[in-house]
C-alpha cells in the first residue's frame, strides 16, 4: 500500500509552481474543529483542458476537497492554486475564473430558467449586450428552451440539474468543478449530462468531476484519482489503473445455487494453489473470483468444481473494471474499516447500466 500512496503524492516541496496548471493543490489537509480529518494531504496537479475525475465512496472527503478548491473552505494546511491564482490570497480572482456546480442542485426555484441564467450572468458581470445570446445558447445546450419561461419549482430532478449545470457556465469559466453532478438522476438524464460535460471539455474547459460512480469516471475522465479516507490512494488514466491494479474476474453461475453448493464450490477453488490466494465473493447465483492468474488455471478450475460435485450452468471471464480496481485497492488497505465496506457496496449497487 505504501508504494501506491507514494506514487501520486511525490514530495512537493521542491517543485516550482507551473503556471500552466489549471488546478495545483498541494498537501491539502482539512481538519474540522472537532478533530475529524476530512482530507489528509491531497495533492492534485491538473493540466488545462483535462477531464479529471475524483472518485471515492461517500464520506471519502470528495466534497470537502472540492470546497477547498473553490474557495468555500480554507484548508487547515496546504495550498491551492487555480488558474495561477492563490485561493487563500486571491480568492476573488479564483471565483471569477471558475464555475462550481454543488452536489445539491442550486437553482432559484421561484425564478424561471431564463431568469436563473440572467441572475448568474449578472452575478458574474457578463456584459448586458452578451447576455441574451449566451442564455439562448445555454438553454439550447441543456435542452430547456421549451420551459425557459416556466418557474422551475416543479421541474424534475434532471431538469433542475441541467439548469444548474448551465448556470455555472454563463461566464465561460476555464475551469469547471462538478460535485457529483449525476447522483440521483435516472440513466437517461445522466447520459445527457455526460454528453454535455464532454462537449464543454472538447471546447477547452478543464473539468474537475467528483463521482461515486466508477462507470462515470471510466467513461468521461482522462485521468482520475481514487480517494479513500481523505487520501488519494491512486492516480492515473482509467486504463492504467485497470491494468495496474485490476485483476481478471471469473464469474461462476451454479446450476443449483443453494448455499451449501456455493460453499462447496468456494472450498474447491481455494484448494487450487496456482490461484495464489484469490479474492472470492459469493453472488446471488454463484460466486466471483478475482485473481491475476484466472486465465491460466481455467481448466484446473472446472475439474476442481467437477470433483466437488458442483455443476456450473454458466461462467464469464471479464477484464477488470474500475469497480474491481477500487475493490482491490480498498480491500487490502482497509479490511478492518466497515464504513468503507458499506460505501463500496452502495457504490456498485448504484452503478448505471448502459
Amino acid at each position, binding site marked *: 500500500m505504501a508504494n501506491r500512496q507514494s506514487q501520486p503524492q511525490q514530495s512537493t516541496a521542491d517543485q516550482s509552481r507551473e503556471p500552466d496548471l489549471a488546478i495545483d493543490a498541494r498537501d491539502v489537509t482539512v481538519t474540522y474543529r472537532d478533530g475529524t480529518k476530512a482530507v489528509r494531504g491531497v495533492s492534485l496537479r491538473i493540466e488545462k483542458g483535462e477531464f479529471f475525475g475524483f472518485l471515492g465512496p461517500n464520506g471519502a472527503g470528495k466534497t470537502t476537497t472540492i470546497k477547498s478548491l473553490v474557495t468555500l473552505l480554507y484548508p487547515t494546511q496546504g495550498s491551492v492554486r487555480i488558474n495561477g491564482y492563490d485561493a487563500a490570497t486571491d480568492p476573488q480572482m479564483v471565483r471569477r475564473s471558475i464555475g462550481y456546480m*454543488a452536489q445539491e442542485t442550486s437553482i432559484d426555484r421561484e425564478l424561471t430558467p431564463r431568469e436563473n441564467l440572467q441572475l448568474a450572468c*449578472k452575478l*458574474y458581470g457578463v456584459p448586458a449586450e452578451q447576455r441574451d445570446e449566451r442564455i439562448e445558447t445555454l438553454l439550447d445546450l441543456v435542452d430547456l428552451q421549451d420551459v425557459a419561461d416556466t418557474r422551475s419549482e416543479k421541474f424534475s430532478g434532471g431538469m433542475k440539474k441541467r439548469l444548474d449545470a448551465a448556470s455555472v457556465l454563463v461566464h465561460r469559466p476555464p475551469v469547471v468543478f462538478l460535485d457529483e453532478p449525476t447522483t440521483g438522476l435516472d440513466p437517461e438524464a445522466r447520459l445527457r449530462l455526460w454528453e454535455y460535460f464532454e462537449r464543454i471539455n472538447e471546447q477547452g474547459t478543464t473539468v474537475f468531476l467528483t463521482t461515486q460512480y466508477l462507470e462515470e469516471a471510466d467513461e468521461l475522465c482522462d485521468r482520475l484519482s481514487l480517494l479513500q479516507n481523505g487520501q488519494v490512494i491512486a492516480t492515473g488514466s482509467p486504463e492504467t489503473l485497470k491494468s495496474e491494479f485490476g485483476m481478471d474476474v471469473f464469474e461462476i453461475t451454479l446450476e443449483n445455487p443453494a448455499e451449501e453448493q456455493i460453499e462447496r464450490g468456494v472450498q474447491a477453488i481455494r484448494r487450487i494453489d496456482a490461484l495464489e490466494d484469490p479474492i472470492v465473493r459469493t453472488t446471488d447465483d454463484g460466486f466471483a473470483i478475482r485473481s491475476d492468474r484466472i486465465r491460466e488455471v481455467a481448466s484446473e478450475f472446472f475439474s476442481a468444481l467437477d470433483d466437488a460435485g458442483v455443476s456450473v450452468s454458466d461462467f464469464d471471464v471479464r477484464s477488470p473494471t474500475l469497480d474491481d480496481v477500487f475493490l482491490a485497492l480498498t480491500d487490502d488497505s482497509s479490511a478492518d474499516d466497515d464504513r468503507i465496506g458499506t460505501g463500496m457496496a452502495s457504490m456498485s449497487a448504484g452503478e448505471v447500466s448502459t
Partner: protein
Amino acid sequence: MSGHDGRTVISDTAQKAPGNSATDDVRISFKRWLIKNLRNPYVVFTSLIQPVIFFVLFVEVFGAIAGSALAEALGPDISYVTYLSPAIIVMSTLSSAATSGIGLVDDMEEGMFEKMLVSPVNRSAMFFGKVLSEVTRIVVQTLLILLLGYLLLVIKNGAAFDQYLRTGVAGIVGVVFVTVIFGGAFMAYSNIVALVTRDQEATIMFANLLTFPLLFISSAFLPLGVLPKWIRTVAVLNPITYGVDGVRAIMLGRDVMTVVDVTAFSGIWNTVVPASIVLVGCNVILGTVAIRLLRHAAGSKVQ
C-alpha cells in the same frame, strides 16, 4: 439536443468574469428578492391581505368597547381607527420583518447562498440588497395601511385627513421612519434565529411565537393605563411598545408614551425621541449579532 453544436458556448474560454461594483451587486440582489417576494403568495398575503382583515376586525370588535378606555386615557376626540392604525402598522411590519430569515434559510437550503459565495459577488452588498427589498416591502405596506385607516375613518365619521394623521404629510415620513427602524430590529432578530437554527420551521415558529404575545403585552390595542399592572411592567421591556408609541405619537400629534416619562423635549418628541433611541439601540445590538453570525456562515474557515 437537436443538432445544436454549441460551439459558441466556450469558444473563448480562457478568461475570467469581469465582476461588478458593489452598487451593482446591491441592485442585483434587491431585484432578485423583490421578484421573489412578489411571486410568493404568502408574502403578498401577509403584506396586503392580513392587515386589512385585522384592521377591519379589530375596529369592528374592539372599537365597540374601546371607546371609554380611550376617552379615559387620551380624551374624547380620538377614534379607535386612528388609535389602532399604529398597532396594525407595527403588527404588519412585525409579520414581514420576522420572516426575513426564512428567505435566508431558503437560500441556504436551496444552495443559492453557496452559489453566491462562490461567485465574485460582494457579500455585504448581496445581504444589503435583500434587506433593502424587505424595507421596501415594509414601506409599501405601511403606506397602504395608512390609506386603509383613513378610508375606514372616512366611512365611519367622514373625517378629514389631518384628523387621521395630525402631523400631516411630514407625519407620513415620520411614521415610515419609525416603522423602518422598528422593522430593522426584528429583521435582525429573524436572521439570528435563521442562522442559529438553519431551519425554516423554527424561523417561522419563533416569528409567530413572538408576534402575538408581544403585541398583546404592549400599548398596541388598548392604552396601558387600562391594562393589568404586570402587563404595564413587561411593556417597558417590549420593543413593540416603542414602535407603537412612536407611530402613535406622530399620528395623534401628542406625547403618548407612558412607559418612560420623558419631558426633556416638547410634545410628540417626548415620545418619538426615546422610542427612536430604544429602537435604534435594538438595531445596533441585534444587527451586530446577526452580521457576526452571517459572517461566520459565509466564511471559509473550517468549522
